[in-house]
């Protein structure tokens, strides 16, 4: 009888499913999505590359000046993330000393380009 009651109740309730893509599920602020790097903050320390469990962060040439703790530093390297292989674990974000590399609160999206990279 409990099942019947439940079924009758469901007839008068709103559907649980939503009409995607017109309506989308809200993404929480803590969501671990696509990796991004803020170039102005990155001091090129390579820590993200060293902790990455999937080994998808490589340090590439990127000479630039970065202000760090009030000093202007000439930096040579910047991280490049292979998005297709990234597992969104967030270890790079956790270990970044300046908060430059971070996971955006957006769904990673889909694509056909296996070589898509973020620097």
């Amino acid at each position, binding site marked *: *009888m*409990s*099942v019947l009651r439940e079924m009758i109740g469901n007839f008068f309730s709103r559907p649980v499913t939503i009409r995607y893509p017109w309506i989308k599920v809200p993404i929480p602020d*803590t969501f*671990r999505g696509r990796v991004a790097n803020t170039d102005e903050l990155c001091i090129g320390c390579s820590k993200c590359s060293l902790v990455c469990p999937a080994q998808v962060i490589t340090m590439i040439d990127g000479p630039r000046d970065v202000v760090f703790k009030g000093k202007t530093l000439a930096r040579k390297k910047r991280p490049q993330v292979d998005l297709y292989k990234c597992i969104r674990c967030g270890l790079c974000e956790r270990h970044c000393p300046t908060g430059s590399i971070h996971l955006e609160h957006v769904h990673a999206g889909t694509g056909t380009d296996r070589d898509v990279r973020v620097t």
Partner: protein
Amino acid sequence: MPEVVVPIGPHHPALKEPVNFRVIADGEKIVRLELDLSYNHRGIEKAAEQRNFIRVLPLLERVCGICSHSHATAFAKGVEEIMGLEIPPRARYIRTIIAELERMHSHLLWLGVAAHEIGFNTLFMWSWRDREAVQDTLEEMSGNRVHYGMNEIGGVRRDLTPAQIKTALARLPDLEDRIQKYVGMVNSEETMLIRFRGVGKMSREEALKYGAVGPTARASGVDYDVRRDDPYLAYDEIPWKVITDNHGDVYGRTRVRVGELWESTQIVRFCLENIPAGPVRVEAPKNAPEGEILSRYEAPRGELAHYIRTNGTDKVERIDIRSPTLANWTSVAMCLTGQNLADIPVIVAAIDPCLSCTCRMVVVHRRGGRAVPGTAAGESGHDPKSRQDGWRP
């Protein structure tokens, strides 16, 4: 009537993961079951030996897609003990909250799968709908629905904000209400009673003999739960009780799991309401001293064991994972003996098998010295003579 071998798998439309059953049947009755596992061997243990303590945790989470927190916590707990680290109380509570939410989503998933196996797809849809509330809470707390990434050696990576605690507490009354309905449904719904009662019966002695763990053992009256008998995290500070049942059949296993669902909601509620303030992690040393430990953890499916050996470096020298499904397979082989062929799906589903978790055992054949995939058939199942020529690499 002569005995007939019914091969099922390793690739079969009814199987969700690859496993090879050789069901020896006499008419409709099952005489014995032979099992071949390890079609999904991924070499995770060897890969774990190559990574340091920071990088190994995301890998170990991926041993299982359902109990990812279990594996990471079992490992972190073991390494912290070797290092002599005491994690802060707030971290213990956060780990407990995630662990119990994981148990809830695992049991709700199982309830749906079990209902699906008996053709009760209405319940399957309902329980998976309710599981979404748990998954949403986990996603809000950790950033992901499946691989939470909450653990690190020395504590947890993310703290819980007051807003997250408030949202989680607001979701609980609805879930509790739903779970109460399931408790009633399991005990009164004819569809379930007819298909679950008396199916896959296992006595307490048999459960102990065949080494069953978790809800499978507790449904046969084995009063054993690692959370109570070898307390870890915050379980010794929380009022809760171990659910056991004396039916010993699939009905008993369902009752235990649904009862545990309710207990988990109460544990989560207690933890959220009484979470202590303070830091969420302590600084962990880079290297672990030489040592070895067997870290035990009550995963949703049963007792999970991580054997960890360290050698003074920042990596483990050896890690061996014994997942609960591996311990339960022998009891399945025993339970199936004498049952009808049509009961195979529901008896197998009753242990909540996770085949990918299981695939890390290798048995060396004594006669030829060849390494062969592991078998987990019990006395009723394994017959070395019949396997003599059966192996194909």
